[in-house]
């Protein structure tokens, strides 16, 4: 964890921190676990495991600081170490992530897409959820952290152990990939390219 000086908590304080600062995030934690594993039972195990670890290492958590980011980081590490290892699917993300994409000349090409706002209005079913779930887990993760949970760049960088520049470029790529998927759904629903 962070280089926080070890806290001294009494047993009573530990339970208080756990109940008042950790447990209120359980909905977000469960959703994160579910979106990572795409399985309800695995998500339950992951969340349970994360909370037990959080309790065990509670003295490296400083009362009143960002408990949500701290918990998300533990969950993400548990997922990588315990769960992802078991799954056969290797990461497909190309780690040679280009961070100089802003320097590209064809900004206009990057900003336009054949996806239309009108087609989104008909996506009232599982389209968006399926599109998100179909992204590689590393891309899915940044979308969850930013768009569902509202984490800032510096918080995401800490949760994921990657530089802020990588957070930014990964988010950019993730958004484009998501739009590609949504375009496919839109085409299936009968929307034509402009």
């Amino acid at each position, binding site marked *: 964890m962070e280089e926080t000086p070890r806290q001294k908590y009494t047993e009573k304080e530990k339970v208080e921190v756990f109940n008042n600062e950790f*447990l209120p995030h359980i909905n977000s934690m469960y959703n994160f676990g579910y979106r990572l594993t795409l399985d309800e039972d695995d998500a339950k195990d992951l969340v349970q495991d994360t909370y037990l670890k959080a309790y065990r290492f509670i003295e490296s958590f400083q009362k009143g600081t960002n408990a949500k980011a701290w918990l998300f980081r533990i969950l993400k590490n548990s997922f990588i170490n315990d769960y992802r290892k078991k799954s056969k699917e290797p990461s497909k993300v190309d780690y040679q992530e280009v961070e100089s994409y802003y320097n590209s000349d064809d900004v206009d090409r990057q900003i336009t897409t054949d996806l239309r706002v009108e087609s989104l209005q008909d996506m009232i079913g599982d389209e968006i959820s399926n599109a998100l779930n179909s992204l590689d887990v590393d891309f899915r993760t940044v979308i969850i952290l930013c768009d569902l949970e509202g984490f800032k760049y510096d918080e995401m960088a800490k949760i994921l152990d990657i530089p802020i520049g990588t957070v930014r470029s990964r988010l950019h790529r993730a958004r484009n990939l998501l739009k590609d998927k949504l375009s496919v759904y839109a085409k299936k629903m009968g929307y034509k390219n402009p």
Partner: protein
Amino acid sequence: MSLLDNPFAGSSGNKISCLEMLQAILDGDATEEQQQYFRKHMDECLPCYKAHELDMQIKQLLKTKCSGNPVPADLVEKIKRQVNSIS
């Protein structure tokens, strides 16, 4: 506010692209001043206006459609029990 006062411009004074501004807005990384500047910018930049509208809709859809899976009722109790047994 003139374009010379672009609050997105960093200390390096580099020219900031539409894409960069848009992403800062979308990612929740823009200051109040930057948001205000971008709103004005959209009045004169159709690609930004369209992209912003689309991206914000997707963001909104994600929020309403991809969160709020209810936590299984027994999970919190189970966690509390286990914590009590180790404390």
